[in-house]
């Protein structure tokens, strides 16, 4: 067991958890950055990590478990998972303690108003970098469009859409 690797996992995913403001998907760009910088996963493996986070019952952040497992086996999975969720717990503890002070200050709200557009931009970055290699395959382009519009219409759950695109991909091999 490589301690420095586990430390690096813990440190990286703690940061992902700490700065993932604006909902679970806000963590995706931060994870992509971590994975890319350390050369932990190939782009396709990273897409699989995000997709697994969608087809399992838990939140998107559970993708950290997959990344940790790929990097350092079971202990890596444990370390990455704990690290990515700890900031949530600490933040909720602190927010509960200082609830009234924070709620009444509109500084907090203004900060979130500045953060949200950034989160939108960085998620778009991930979509672009992940989508670029797909642009020479017609059925993948169609899948992107179909999944996006179905997900926006909210008639089908995210997990079902991912499962559908997996099945389609397998059919295209035949």
């Amino acid at each position, binding site marked *: 067991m490589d301690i420095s690797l586990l430390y690096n996992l813990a440190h990286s995913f703690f940061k992902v958890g700490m700065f993932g403001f604006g909902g679970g998907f806000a963590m995706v760009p931060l994870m992509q950055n971590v994975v890319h910088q350390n050369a932990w996963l190939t782009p396709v493996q990273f897409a699989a990590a995000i*997709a697994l986070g969608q087809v399992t019952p838990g939140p998107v952040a559970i993708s950290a478990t997959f990344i940790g*497992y790929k990097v350092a086996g079971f202990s890596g999975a444990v370390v990455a998972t704990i690290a990515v969720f700890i900031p949530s717990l600490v933040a909720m503890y602190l927010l*509960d303690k200082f609830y009234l002070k924070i709620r009444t200050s509109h500084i907090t709200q*203004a900060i979130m108003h500045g953060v949200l557009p950034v*989160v939108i931009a960085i998620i778009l970055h991930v979509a672009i970098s992940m989508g670029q290699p797909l642009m020479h395959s017609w059925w993948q382009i169609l899948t992107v469009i179909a999944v996006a519009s179905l997900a926006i219409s909210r008639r089908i759950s995210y997990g079902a859409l*991912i499962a559908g695109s997996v099945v389609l991909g397998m059919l295209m091999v035949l």
Partner: protein
Amino acid sequence: MQNKNEKILETEQTDNAPGWLDVARVYLKIGTIGFGGGFAVMDLIHSELVEKHPWLTEQRYQNMVALAEMAPGALTVNLLSGIAYRLGGVKTMILATTALIMPSFVLITLLAGAFLAWQNHPMVKGALDGLTAGVVGLLLAVVWSMVKKAPRHWCCFVVGLLAFVLGIVMPINPIWLVLMGGMAGALKVVVETLRNRHINTPSENNGTK
């Protein structure tokens, strides 16, 4: 009248405070059947914690949602860990959140093992091609829904556009972009309050209020 009602409910709540095992059991259930993320899970949480169990009032639930939106990380985990803390302190918070995440954790580690063993099989490669396209589609849908919810203010457009262009032209850690966005938001408030003070001071003498 309403105040009285709320007080009664609150005292009831402290009397019926559930043990950590009860909370963990419900959280394990949510973590096992809470597929799909987002709104479906929020409905499940509401029905389990507000309707089925008398653990918290609607008001408290709504307050907790507001808090959870301010914390970093997944909304559902924030909400549930916050509620667990309210119900039984730090111990319940840690144990119940662990119960919540456990089913996904087990499933992911099993799937990860299978995936890594089979990833070079042509069928799995095809599945991955489809999956990648699906993930890109989902991300675009998430971007769309966030754009619709974003406040309509020129500052938001400028900050978003700036972050987008910066991230494209240079390799920058997205954490820095998030921090810059937060600082831009804070700066806006500071500038606005300073300007308001500047405008309001002379007009107060005229008694326009």
